[in-house]
């Protein structure tokens, strides 16, 4: 289920960017990669205390998100979908290689939030797991507050309904796009931090695919559908490998393909997601 929390956060990043810009950010997984690796650098290499590590990691990832928007998305704001897809893929490869350049080792052990287990009625739960759930719940709550109670958040929701109309009522659409990337960067960073007992440079692509699957399962653009999608995917990934090895007796290496298969099946059968309503496509 801790994995589920990670997918929830990545999926929320996808949704927020999709809502305010109409594009899918293929570099979303790489924000998480930076999250995990930066957390390692701050906590282990620099010895920063933990609360500060969280803040620094989130801030840096938010800045990375913002820079991505200004350098990659903003110049392409008038180009088509294909251009945006390819450019964000470019960004994703670029970040992955940067990650490999600065953190060349296979894996980095990021310290737990607090060590040890908590005795619970019936079972013991690692406190890391509670942190994961707590921080995810907190981010979901904060996102809800932001999108429903603040002016900027409401403006971003207006962009998701109709960018042109939003621009007509005086919303600066380009700024909203920047904010979306900043928020998505921070969420991605948090996901990377939670995900990582071991952080490595190559994690971005798979995390990206899984996060996207989660957001599609919940309905793309539905920020809170992401919660359901992420948890469902996390659960499936726990159950299916066990089923594969125990019942069918095949290698658990197939695990990596689960998210991709779920993604394709959901896209074909229920493209609007398990929670989504039918959409009418405009010509």
């Amino acid at each position: 289920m801790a994995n589920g929390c990670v997918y929830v956060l990545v999926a929320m990043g996808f949704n927020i960017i999709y809502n305010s810009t109409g594009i899918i950010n293929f570099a979303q997984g790489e924000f998480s990669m930076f999250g995990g690796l930066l957390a390692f650098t701050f906590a282990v290499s620099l010895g920063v205390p933990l609360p500060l590590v969280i803040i620094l990691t989130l801030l840096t990832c938010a800045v990375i998100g913002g820079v991505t928007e200004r350098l990659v998305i903003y110049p392409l704001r008038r180009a088509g979908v294909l251009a945006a897809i390819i450019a964000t893929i470019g960004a994703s490869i670029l970040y992955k290689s940067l990650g490999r350049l600065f953190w060349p080792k296979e894996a980095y052990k990021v310290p737990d939030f607090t060590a040890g287990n908590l005795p619970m009625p019936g079972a013991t739960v690692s406190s890391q797991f509670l942190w994961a759930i707590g921080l995810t719940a907190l981010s979901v709550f904060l996102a809800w507050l932001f999108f429903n109670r603040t002016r900027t958040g409401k403006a971003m929701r207006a962009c998701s309904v109709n960018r042109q109309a939003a621009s007509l009522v005086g919303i600066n659409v380009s700024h909203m796009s920047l904010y979306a990337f900043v928020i998505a960067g921070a969420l991605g960073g948090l996901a990377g931090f939670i995900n990582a007992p071991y952080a490595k440079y190559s994690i971005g692509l798979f995390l990206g695919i899984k996060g996207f699957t989660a957001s599609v399962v919940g309905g793309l653009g539905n920020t809170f559908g992401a919660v359901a999608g992420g948890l469902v995917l996390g659960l499936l990934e726990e159950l299916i490998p066990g089923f594969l090895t125990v019942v069918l007796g095949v290698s658990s290496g197939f695990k990596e393909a689960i998210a991709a298969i779920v993604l394709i099946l959901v896209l074909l059968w229920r493209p609007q997601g398990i929670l989504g309503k039918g959409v009418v496509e405009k010509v």
Partner: protein
Amino acid sequence: MAEKSKAETRKEEGLGSRFLALVVRNKILLILAFFIAIMPVWADPISKPLGIDLVYVMRLVGVFTIVAVGLNLLMGYAGQISLGHGAFFGVGAYTSALLTVKAGFPVWFALILSIVVAAIVGLLVAPILRLKGHYLAMATLGLGIIAFVFFRELVWLTNGNDGVRGIPELALPGLNITTRKGEYFFVWILALLVLILCGNIVRSRQGRAIKALHHSEVAAEAMGINVSWHKIKIFMFSAALGGLAGGVFAHLQGYIDPGSFSIMLSIELVTMVVVGGMESIWGAVAGAGVILFIPEIIEALPKWLGDVPRWVERYSLYEGILFGLILILTMIFMPSGITKGLSDMTRFRRSPFVNPFRKKGVE
């Protein structure tokens, strides 16, 4: 008689001028064929001082041209993005390799089957063509991942990470095509045939249909084009070319493993198409050339300059930085790719770059 029918005019022009017209129409093809034909003559002497085996690299360029031109038909002309085309390349390579090594099929028969199998796989996954834009991109990316995982995990079939060894060479009785130069000529004859075929397809009824559905599926449907069937056909054709290139690749290399067909391959293929130029048959050649020569040139740099910084020597560790930058910068500054950019430059005396920050009128 002031008005002559076209047929009469053509008859009077005679054979010579018709031949000339044919030459003019296919001038790029002929220039390329000429360049390919004489290349070994001048390339061999300078390969050594250059530190790049030009003929060897060009052979790979030929292989990747075949799959890139297929992907370009799909992405550039039909507008259907595929981020998983490495999967078909891999399917072709594994089909041909396993049929020859494990089942003892004749090489050429296996190569043909690799085309067929890739096309069938293309047909099987064709339902995802119902998706559009981002969804299609992500779904094809997922396909690439699934294919990679299957290549690696179906150990009883593919030997997993150990790969398949001892794949026989493509040999023809009487023709010497297993030498280095022979392979080069064989690959390029195949590539030129594929280029001619694709060039004809885009000018045909089919080609016009897929260009129409690129711009508006609804309008294309209204014109009586069977949109989904055309999409499936072009996807299968593109997959088949991927399979062909993969099969040839397997026989040339003699050894394949899943690592060669990871998602990075698919992304390199997309880079080739984008850099070379979408909606351009020749863009595939240019793109494959650029993308395959860049690593070679950087690896050869120490030989040219003597002393290079350490980070240049360790280039292969992070070639992704370069690919990523190329993708981003091409999309921003030269979205129509090298071939279109250059032809615009020569034809309209216009800079091949676009300025994304220029203010435009009210949208």
